[in-house]
C-alpha cells in the first residue's frame, strides 16, 4: 500500500491498473519539476545570452566558459554538486527545488545558445538602421530583434522542453518522489519491477509524443518572417 492505494498482484494487468493512481501522484511531481526547471532555463538562458554579448571581454569570456562547462558535464554530477555542496554554504533547499535548479541550470546552457543564435541571425544592417533611426537599445530589442527572433527560436526551445521532461527521472536519485522513485519503491515491496518500470516507460512515451506534436503545431502557427508589429 502506498498513499492509501492498495495494489492487486493477482495478474500483471490488474497490478498495472492498481498502481496507476500512485504513479499519477509521481507524474504530478515529474511535471512540476519539468515546469519549474524549464522556467529557470528560459530566464537564466536569456540572462546568460545577453551577458555573453557584453562589451566587457571579462564578462563575455567568463559566461562563455561557464556555459561550455555546464553543457559538457553530466546533469547527475551537477545535481550531486548542488545537493551536497549548497548546504555547506548555508543554502538548504528542499530536494525538489535543488533538482529543479539543476535541471534549469543544465538547460540554461542550451537555451542561451539558442537565444544567441536567434540574436546573431539578425543582420548587421538592421542594428545600424536602428541606430540611424535613433532607437534606444530597449526599443531595438522590443520592436526589431524579439519579433524576428521568436519564430526562429521556438522549435529549438521546444525540443529542449521535451528532452528536459525525459531527464526529470534523474531527480529520483536525490529523494524526489517522482514517478520513477515510486515505481522503484513498488518494485522493492512487491519484488516485481517489470510492471511498474514498464508502466513508467508507457506513461512517458505518449507524453513525449504529445509534447513534440504540440511544439510542432506552435511552430507552424508562428509566422515565418516574424511577428507583425502592432
Amino acid at each position, binding site marked *: 500500500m502506498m498513499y492509501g492505494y492498495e495494489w492487486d498482484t493477482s495478474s500483471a494487468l490488474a497490478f498495472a491498473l492498481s498502481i496507476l493512481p500512485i504513479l499519477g501522484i509521481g507524474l504530478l511531481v515529474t511535471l512540476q519539476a519539468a515546469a519549474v526547471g524549464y522556467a529557470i532555463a528560459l530566464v537564466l538562458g536569456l540572462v546568460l545570452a545577453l551577458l555573453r554579448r557584453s562589451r566587457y571581454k571579462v564578462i563575455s569570456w567568463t559566461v562563455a566558459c561557464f556555459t561550455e562547462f555546464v553543457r*559538457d558535464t*553530466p546533469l547527475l554530477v551537477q545535481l550531486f554538486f548542488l545537493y*551536497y555542496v549548497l548546504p*555547506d554554504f548555508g543554502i538548504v533547499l528542499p530536494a525538489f527545488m535543488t533538482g529543479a535548479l539543476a535541471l534549469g541550470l543544465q538547460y540554461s546552457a542550451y537555451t542561451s545558445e539558442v537565444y544567441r543564435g536567434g540574436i546573431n541571425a539578425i543582420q548587421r544592417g538592421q542594428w545600424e538602421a536602428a541606430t540611424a533611426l535613433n532607437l534606444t537599445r530597449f526599443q531595438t530589442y522590443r520592436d526589431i530583434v524579439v519579433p524576428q527572433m521568436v519564430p526562429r527560436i521556438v522549435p529549438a526551445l521546444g525540443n529542449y522542453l521535451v528532452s528536459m521532461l525525459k*531527464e526529470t527521472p534523474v531527480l529520483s536519485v536525490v529523494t524526489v518522489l517522482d514517478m520513477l522513485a515510486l515505481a522503484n519503491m513498488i518494485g522493492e515491496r512487491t519484488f516485481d*519491477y517489470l510492471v511498474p518500470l*514498464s508502466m513508467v516507460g508507457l506513461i512517458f512515451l505518449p507524453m*513525449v509524443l504529445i509534447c513534440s506534436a504540440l511544439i510542432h503545431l506552435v511552430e507552424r502557427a508562428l509566422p515565418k518572417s516574424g511577428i507583425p508589429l502592432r
Partner: protein
Amino acid sequence: MTWTQYLAPLMKGAQITVMISLTSIAFGTVLAFLAGIARTSSNPIISGIAFVYVLLFRGTPLLVQLFWFYYALPLIGVSFDPITTGIMVLSLLTGAFGAEVVRGALMAVPQAQHEAARALNFSKFHTLWHISMPQAIIEMMPAFGNLAVQNLKDTALVSLISIADLTFQAQSLRNITLDSATIYTMTLAGYFIIALGLMLIIRFIEAKLRRGAAFPRSAHS
C-alpha cells in the same frame, strides 16, 4: 584526506567512464547506420521495425531504460552483468538518436542524384554506398559530435546500477570524507576534460572524411 589523494580513485573511475563511453559510441554508431538506413527502406517491415526501435528509445527516459534492463528484464529470465547492461542501453539510446541523424542526412541527398544513378543502372546498394553515403556522412559529423558528448554525459547514470565509473567513485569518496565541494568540482572537471578529448577526436575524424570526400560540401548544398 587531501585532494591529491582523491586523484587515484577518480582516475580509476574515469577509465571505466571512458571505456563505457567509447564502446557504446562505437556500437551506437553501427546501430545508428543500420536503423537509419532501414528507416529509408521501401520494405515496410524493415522500416517499421527501425521506426519502433527509434520511437521506443527516443521517447522514454534513459534512467527508466537502464532500470528496466537492470531490474525488470532478469524477472523474465534475461540478465546481464552491470557493465554489459550499461553499454547495451547506452548503445541502443545513442543508436536511436543517431538513426535520425543518418536518416536526415540520407534524405538531404538531392533526388536527382538517385534518378541519375537509376539511369546509369546502378544497383540500390551501389547507389547508397557510392553516391549517397559519401556525401551524407560529412553532413552527419557535427550532429554525431553532439551525440558523442551527450553519450559521455549519459554514462554518469550507469553509476546507479553499481558500475564503478567516475560518478560512482565520487559518490563513494564523498560518503567517506564528506568533502563534497572538492570531490564534485574535481569530478566535473574530469568529465569536462574527457568531453574536450572526445570533441578533438570527432574533429579529427571529420577533417579526415572531408579531405577524402567524393564531393566538396558546397557542391550539393
